[in-house]
């Protein structure tokens, strides 16, 4: 079982590293991730949301729905823990 797990982990790691061969170099300013959607957020954050903190403006405004989802995840985990752990009163 341990050998199988080790082989699986090495295989998955090798696949991930193989996949990273074609990635943009670390820190490349012209990479697709830095030049497609992000410049819009940096340039328009002040006029759209009047917030200098761009992470906040994305989190709260542009992608605010993801933040609602994240809040729901916390709520779900809380309700799940109550459902799992709460013991009824011994009658």
């Amino acid at each position, binding site marked *: 079982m341990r050998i199988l797990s080790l082989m699986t982990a090495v295989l998955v790691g090798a*696949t*991930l590293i*193989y*996949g*990273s*061969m*074609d*990635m*943009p170099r670390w820190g490349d300013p012209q*990479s*697709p*991730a*830095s*030049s*497609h*959607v*992000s410049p*819009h*957020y940096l340039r328009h954050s002040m006029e759209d949301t009047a917030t200098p903190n761009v992470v906040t403006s994305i989190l709260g*405004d*542009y*992608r*605010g*729905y*993801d933040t609602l*989802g*994240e809040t*729901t*995840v916390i*709520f*779900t*985990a809380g*309700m*799940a*823990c*109550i*459902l*799992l752990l*709460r013991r*009824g009163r011994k009658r």
Partner: protein
Amino acid sequence: MTAQIPILVVVIPLVSSFFCPLMGLWRKGLCYFWAVVALSLCVLASFNTLLTVVETGTIRYRLGGWAPPFGIEYVVDHLNAMMLVLVSVISLIVAIYSKRSVEQELPEKITYFYTVFLLQVTGFLGIVITGDLFNLYVFLEIGSLAGYALIAVGEDGAPLATFRYIVMGTIGACFYLLGVGYIYISTGSLNMADVQQLLPQLYDSKVILTAVAFLLAGLAVKMALFPVHVWLPDAYAKAPSATSALLAPLMTKISLYVMIRVLFSVFEPHLSIERLPITDIMVWAGFLAILGGAVMALAQTDFKRMLCYVVVAEVGYIVGGVGLANAIAIKGAILHILNDAVMTAGLFAVAGIVMYKTKSHNISDFHGLFKKMPFTMATFVVGALSIIGVPPTCGFFSKWYLIHGAVIAKHWAFLGALLLSSLISVVLFFRVIEIGFVFQPSHEGDTHSGGHTVTMDEAPASMLVPTVVIAMAIILIGLYNQTILSNLITFAVPKL
């Protein structure tokens, strides 16, 4: 107002789950009715969405008014709309059905059970309706966490089964997140439609290859594709009856829907079918799943575990059908998603009723049930015929399209697996039906007549009526399958 209906489909269960604990503090019995009311409104909203999509085409709803790819977008096309209606209707039916079962199995946990139930439905609906890759991950996790809790409050042995499910489910979700990460690093966008436009020039990139591999591997764990299905039998067999009736039909089908979306709406059919051998691998994976599921089901003595292996085999049908990559097979696969969800819901509902009445879900405890609970067992027979594939039940028609697609693709191994699994299903279900007809007066018996007459001890109406409704739906979907195909599914099949 009607323009906001797509978001209401997700928001109604979400907001009502926030109020459910408050309802429970006031009066415990209210939670059930609150959940049923919320899910009924959700069903209305999803039917409205379906009718809008059938009349006017794809709905694109921008959350917060921001244009994609800068904001999140909901894209509802025919496939989506069908899944929305499917998920909300089955959730409503299971919620109505669950009252007595939850009162018997989880008497102190009713409030929080319904809260987490509503959150689970929110997660499912959020996965189905979204057009953004990362938003899908967030709702996938909402659904997963709720599912873990709903399963772990089951019978003895459920917590360990859930722990194994957590480990495998987290691996699946993290592989999905890694795949999304690789797509983001190479394209810079997270919106499905935007990525589809940006990808064609990147098809030679190793990053995209790895992204496809990890997305599909993560989804394979979530949909219990053989051989990573090992979490499913333990988890769904030991879960409470209402939970398995909700999760078993829906969780795997929603992961199958995400797989279809990823293969055909994010990566175009050109990549999935022609450039990479993904679809060939999928047919063989489906072949193994069908045979593995059918054979393992034969070995079970526990009714719910047998049904779980039937679910594993059904996932094999759909994966193989999509893998055959011709229009008829994909039509059959999408129709089978609809049919299988309804059939599985019906069968697990029957298992829940048997559990409620006889406190056990062992096949050997099915003695004499045909006389004691005729309506329940009639539903069971309808569900069994549908899994075997007997007209006019819906299972026959989707199997027919899958067989036709296998013949067109000349994939004889998959065709053989389809036919063999129908035979094995006959053996499987007739074994249960045979035991059900034999009555052994080994227990209390009846004191009145002293003979061998059995009093009819049918399930309570709140459990029986939803089950019978599902049985009628199985037959109606079969009779009206041409209408469903021509109005909905033909538009849902991608252009190949």
